[in-house]
């Protein structure tokens, strides 16, 4: 247990450093000493710094942290539930389902009310999740499930394409921008809605550690030690659906974080006890999201790259590496 605590502390430290970097670096670089001065009550040499931090970078960094955690934990839950190392919200098309929901909303009903985007995203992700759970019973091979996920992504992509054809250029633009993914579009008001949901979801995931652990032995063993399969299946369905939908609604579809982060954690941590892995995966997810956000700001350049490109640039080779490794093992 001490080793776990040490790891959590270490990761928290890394997270803190990354968090401060994310606040200070960008098109405008804020000096570190002025930032610490500001924390101690002094004011910045440049008045706009305070506004940049409070209204732009702080919400963005918080969004990145929680979105990263939520996606990574969703990925872990799906991998445990499907007993499939390649499962993840993006790879299995859950994010695409959310996208389709949002596309239908943005392109058909251009006036949206406050919670309409998360709700539309939730609906879309639930539908795909239910399909995947059904399909996981039909297919034994993890690769088949992966291919089905890809096909669902193509299908939703095609539907979105058809929708776009009939939409005005402004509607398309807002959807395309959303689809590139960004942690920077959330205001404090959005955070007030998003953070409680994500935090509750993560805590709930942690509270299900015992049932999740028993699922590692397979569904029959889990049932034989008193786990209700129906309940845990429903819980994971709702939990993953809501976490992914909420993140996707506010940040756009973020590729590969959910699938890759649990593996990143497994590189360093051998245990599969969810009471250990859930906190570690959540922290690592937050760190990875911050790193991607830092890279997206293309340090030294005056541009901001779409976050989805960055996560795909790292995520896709990771999946290829994993498949190659798995192939070698037989």
């Amino acid at each position, binding site marked *: 247990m001490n080793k776990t605590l040490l790891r959590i502390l270490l990761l928290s430290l890394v997270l803190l450093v990354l968090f401060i970097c994310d606040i200070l670096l960008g098109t405008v670089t804020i000096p570190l000493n002025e930032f610490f001065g500001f924390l101690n009550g002094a004011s910045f040499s440049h008045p706009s710094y305070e506004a940049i931090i409070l209204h732009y970078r702080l919400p963005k960094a918080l969004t990145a942290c929680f979105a990263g955690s939520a996606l990574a934990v969703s990925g872990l839950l799906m991998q445990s539930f499907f007993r499939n190392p390649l499962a993840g919200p993006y790879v299995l098309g859950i994010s695409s389902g959310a996208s389709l929901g949002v596309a239908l909303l943005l392109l058909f009903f251009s006036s949206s009310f406050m919670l309409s985007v998360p709700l539309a995203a939730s609906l879309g992700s639930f539908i795909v999740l239910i399909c995947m759970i059904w399909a996981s019973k039909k297919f034994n091979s993890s690769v088949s499930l992966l291919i089905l996920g890809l096909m669902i992504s193509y299908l939703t992509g095609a539907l979105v394409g058809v929708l776009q054809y009939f939409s005005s250029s402004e509607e398309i633009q807002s959807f395309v921008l959303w689809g590139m993914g960004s942690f920077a579009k959330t205001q404090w008001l959005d955070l007030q809605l998003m953070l409680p949901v994500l935090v509750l979801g993560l805590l709930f995931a942690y*509270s*299900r*550690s*015992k*049932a999740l*652990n*028993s699922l*590692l*032995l*397979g569904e*029959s*063993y889990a*049932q*034989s*030690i*008193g*786990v*209700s399969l129906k309940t845990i299946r429903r819980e994971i369905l709702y939990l993953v659906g809501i976490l992914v939908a909420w993140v996707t609604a506010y940040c756009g579809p973020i590729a590969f974080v959910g699938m890759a982060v649990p593996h990143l954690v*497994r590189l360093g941590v*051998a*245990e*599969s*006890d969810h*009471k250990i892995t859930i906190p570690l995966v959540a922290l690592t997810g937050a760190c990875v999201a911050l790193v991607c956000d830092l890279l997206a700001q293309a340090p030294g350049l005056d541009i901001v790259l779409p976050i989805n490109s960055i996560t795909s640039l790292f995520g896709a080779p990771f999946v290829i590496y994993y498949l190659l490794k798995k192939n070698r093992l037989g």
Partner: protein
Amino acid sequence: MGYQGKAVLSELNFEVHAGELICLLGANGKGKSTLLKTLMGILPMVSGEVLLNGKSLNSISAEDKAKEMAVVLTDSLKAVNMKAEEVVATGRYPYFSWNAKLSATDTECIKSSLAEVGALHLSKRWMMSLSDGERQRVILARALAQQTAILLLDEPTAFLDLAHTMELSVLLKQLSREEGKSVLMSTHDWGTALQIADRIFWIDENSCFHILNTKELIEGDRLHKMLNTPFGTWNPSLGRFEINGL
């Protein structure tokens, strides 16, 4: 009893007593696993009732059931990324709430279960690094850690060599004799079954269910008819099957 409302086996009626070891035999696909899974409550019954200590299985909560019945399934758990002791620890799950750590009692029980199957030295090893025989012992220890009166095993000797099959047989016999557990195991191995079982449940080619007394079986010529192949005969005086023409 069967899958998705379709009966695989019908007209079964039997009781299993404490301290009894029963072997379940029958050709592949005749419903051995289905019967075990129905008894575990994993598969719903098409019709009928299973009583556990006089109470209907359906009326007992999953957790209480888990304290009465432990299982060993055919899944070898080779790909499970856990240490042997962690696998055994899952046998303690019915006894603690979601966040409780393993108590001293739990740890003691995990140790003694591993020791009972002679696998204490394997406790820190990863499942994938174990041999089939070692893994099977760990899986049995997991069921023992559940401290139940009933043990259901689905082909526990399938992956084992002769020596390990014998070792497991002795162990199961001890568990039923000395600890009073009811042990019901499915197997293909008539030779072992005839030596260890108090009674034999046999599902024949026509999916008929028979309850057979082991002693009568060995002494009579019924086994010869059951075997029903020109390639072998049952020798009652030696108490074993013999291959013809050798």
